[in-house]
């Protein structure tokens, strides 16, 4: 899918300071070498299976399907991975690659803390130093994850600049990388940033749709009618979509965080409210004002609270191959509670955006149709925030 210069249609590219150019060129060369390397792939598969607990389950949500009264619903259980989300897939791949490149230090941004925890975990496992940059606002929203990262031996740096959320954490990690490159790999957490990151992260996350396809063929003997995943930068969605892109009868649906609504300023729905721009190393869609100043976005979900979207998603939107829909805080919180009650599964508030949209379309689909929802992470981390949203004051 990727063109020569990391382009997906007009999107992608490498809009970064000259200081980082040789680093991304070196990364691309290393990745192109190791992705074909049998030993590397064996090691990665062992880590996926024995350490992260892959393959993740494809679970038939019988009660939810019956309750909604339409399509059969399957849940791809990335929440059951070690560290509690899909983030570990990409992190194990990048950490192993960084190690092969001779790097001894990983730096990463994090929003909800899931990517930070996964990076801290891989660093501990591989004996690497780790520094995680996290928006100050998010260190408060996700205090438990800050503790987890420190427990794993990582240093957590609260980012006070800008809005103190995910975009500022990305900016600060980029700044850190320009100051220390020789021993340091930037373990970027989503299908975004400069080439080759969108391609590398997609490839490591593509294990989700590869398994999904095989598991559904085994259980149902057919492909799904729709695959639904939440989208911030878009890594779990890209991983969930990838092996279905060529299967034109499979609807691919990305659920963006609409926050308090796409007609308000408190939203993070990039496709619905953004326009084409250049930021964080890539050309893609961004929430921005008339002069190109990046907008302060909002979502109840710290993991989707990002003003852009990965370039391959922007391309899938342009071509119409994938659909992107906004889901509000209120709808996501209702879905969070619904899945907990109905299936005994507490999803991450990020994943709840995908569940919310599935509850809208499943009832109007035929009973023999199949929806797969990616549960990108587990929701333990969100319980305190959701309780607060509902007016209950509990401590993490």
């Amino acid at each position, binding site marked *: 899918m990727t063109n020569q210069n990391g382009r997906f249609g007009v999107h992608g590219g*490498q809009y970064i*300071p*000259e200081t980082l*150019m*040789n680093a991304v060129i070196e990364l691309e060369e290393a990745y192109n070498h190791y992705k074909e390397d049998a030993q590397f792939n064996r090691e990665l598969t062992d880590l996926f299976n024995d350490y992260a607990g892959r393959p993740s389950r494809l679970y038939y949500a019988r009660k939810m399907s019956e309750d909604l009264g339409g399509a059969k619903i399957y849940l791809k259980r990335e929440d059951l991975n070690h560290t509690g989300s899909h983030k570990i897939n990409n992190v194990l791949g990048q950490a192993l690659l960084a190690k092969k490149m001779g790097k001894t230090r990983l730096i990463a941004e994090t929003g909800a803390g899931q990517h930070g925890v996964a990076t801290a975990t891989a660093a501990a496992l591989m004996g690497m130093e780790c520094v995680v940059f996290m928006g100050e606002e998010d260190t408060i929203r996700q205090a438990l994850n800050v503790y987890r990262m420190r427990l794993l031996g990582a240093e957590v740096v609260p980012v006070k600049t*800008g809005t103190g959320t995910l975009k500022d954490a990305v900016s600060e990690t980029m*700044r850190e990388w320009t100051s220390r490159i020789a021993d340091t790999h930037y373990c970027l957490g989503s299908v975004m940033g400069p080439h080759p990151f969108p391609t590398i992260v997609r490839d490591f996350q593509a294990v989700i749709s590869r398994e999904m396809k095989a598991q559904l063929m085994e259980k149902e003997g057919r492909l799904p009618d729709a695959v639904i995943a939440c989208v911030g930068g878009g890594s779990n969605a890209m991983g969930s979509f990838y092996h279905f892109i060529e299967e034109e009868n499979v609807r691919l649906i990305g659920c963006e965080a609409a926050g308090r609504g796409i007609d308000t300023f408190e939203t993070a729905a990039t496709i619905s409210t953004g326009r084409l721009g*250049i930021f*964080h190393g890539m050309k893609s869609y961004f929430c921005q004002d008339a*002069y190109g100043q990046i907008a302060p976005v909002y979502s109840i979900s710290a993991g989707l609270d990002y003003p852009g979207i990965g370039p391959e998603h922007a391309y899938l939107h342009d071509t119409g191959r994938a659909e992107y829909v906004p889901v509000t805080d209120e709808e996501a919180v209702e879905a969070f509670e619904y899945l907990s009650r109905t299936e005994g599964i507490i999803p991450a508030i990020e994943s709840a955006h995908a569940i919310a949209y599935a509850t809208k379309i499943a009832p109007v689909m035929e009973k023999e149709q199949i929806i797969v929802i990616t549960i990108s992470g587990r929701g333990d981390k969100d319980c305190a925030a959701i309780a607060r949203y509902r007016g209950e004051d509990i401590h993490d």
Partner: protein
Amino acid sequence: MTRIQRAFDNQKAFIAFITCGDPDLQTTAACVRAAVEGGADLIELGIPFSDPTAEGPVIQGANLRALTGGVTTDQIFDLVRNLRRDVEVPMVFMTYANVVFSYGAERFIATCKEIGMDGIILPDLPYEEKEEFLPLCHTYGVDLISLVAPTSEKRIAMIAREAEGFLYIVSSLGVTGTRSEIKTDLESIVEVVRQNTDIPCAIGFGISTPEQAAKMAGIADGAIVGSAIVKLIEKYGKEAPAYVKAYVKSMKDAITDVT
């Protein structure tokens, strides 16, 4: 000879950076005139961006103050129109790719020409992406300034061969900001630059003292100072122009006798 070439003609150039709209555009205009009176040979005007990923805390702060004050690209174009009534030194914009792209690249670059800007520096537009704006810069005769960094290594020759206006040599790893020491082997970088281009080169990032400026001007054709000036503006606000003039004079004096 272009205005930029004249700034380097038979002398070492002192280049002053100022963030537009920090704390307001009137102060910016006064600071630019003060810098010119102090001896600045070229002015870099920063158009603030919400997320300046190449800047350290000092210039980040200036960007934030300017945007909080409500400054826009159109107001900055008006500032330049005003300045060009009497300011004759070359001026270049320093901003981020999205500010140009979002305004409409052609509209932005055509306006640069119309109001008398000589070039544009975009720290997030490396060699590989310069086609984004270069053809328009050629159409309108605005120089797209290239940067080389301590990590550029084999890329230096490639970048220098196609560089226009002047070449911006980034002195150190990391973001903008004052540094007590600059350790990069800048002599070697400048040597490669000179083998590959006739245009002048100036060193920036981390320079704040007259001694550093003299040393950098000894290696290259000029020195660029940003954060140290922005710090004065942060500290003295509307009273800053007098301090900027005195500071620029001390820096220009330090490089005047350098050969």
